[in-house]
């Protein structure tokens, strides 16, 4: 089997953003369940946080290919 250690490193690096994304959406679901009318306020915030957390995982992916 071929490949580089980069891919293992990327797998490890993806754990953090994975947990972060879970926490963000858990908080979002909690918020909407408690106060359904707050949905339109919470939605952009949730997706913004998701995008910021996910960006970290994707930088890892890019670096796994580049390095």
């Amino acid at each position, binding site marked *: *089997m071929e490949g580089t250690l980069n891919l293992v490193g990327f797998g490890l690096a993806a754990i953090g953003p994975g947990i972060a994304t879970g926490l963000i959406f858990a908080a979002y679901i909690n918020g909407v369940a408690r106060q359904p009318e707050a949905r339109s306020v919470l939605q*952009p915030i949730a*997706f*913004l946080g998701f*995008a910021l957390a996910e*960006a970290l995982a*994707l930088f890892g*992916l890019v670096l796994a*290919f580049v390095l």
Partner: protein
Amino acid sequence: MLSYAAEVGKDEGFNPPDAGDFNLPPFIEGNEFATKPILLVFLSVLLISIFFILASRKAALVPSKLQFAGESVYSFVRNDLGREVIGHEFMRFVPYLFTLFTFILVNNLFGIIPMIQFPTMSRISFPYVLAAFTFFIFHYVGIRKQGFLKYMKEIMFLPGIPKPAYILITPLELATYFLVRPMTLSLRLFANMFAGHLLLLVFILGGEHLLQGVIGLKLISPFAFAIGIALTFFEFMVQCLQAYIFTLLTALYIAGALADEH
């Protein structure tokens, strides 16, 4: 599935798709600009123009189906991204936000449209240009609104922080505004499209390769294709989401530059 394909590759010569698969050769010999991504950008501009000209040509009080489709996209950008985020000066930026959203959306969707199947934004230069537009616009808006010195002062010196902390905070804030924001904006879009396309390539090409193997491998290949199809729908969601997030972040940056709290 990937490790399985890689193990098969040892004796069959299966090459897992990598970054080189995104370097499509120009289809006119010697002309570096005649590549598929460039063609797709022109095609997307053409498609968007035709769609919205047709949708708005016979505007009526009771809208036709086409007019309704065009107007719902427009009102989504204007209300949910413009008015909600930027505030009372939002109408100046709606043309830019709307162009950005439709352009990115159509170019992303090229990734899953049959016969085209190449997301333009998986070539890094296109996201770079779009992020550069956003970068210059939000700084221009901020400087125009507050003056250069006041704008820089607002970026560099956050209020309500003890003075020694500025040694740490000021470089971080400068890096955020001038380096991290445009980099993350472009890399996020690029990496999403790149990773998504690579994922589809792995399963579709892997399934095709399994089909050429012995009978046992032939039986497995439908599963690879099924996952490939499921991932195509997942990609559809990601592509819409990325167009939304790019526009949302642009609107947020503009709103941040416009805000005068002091």
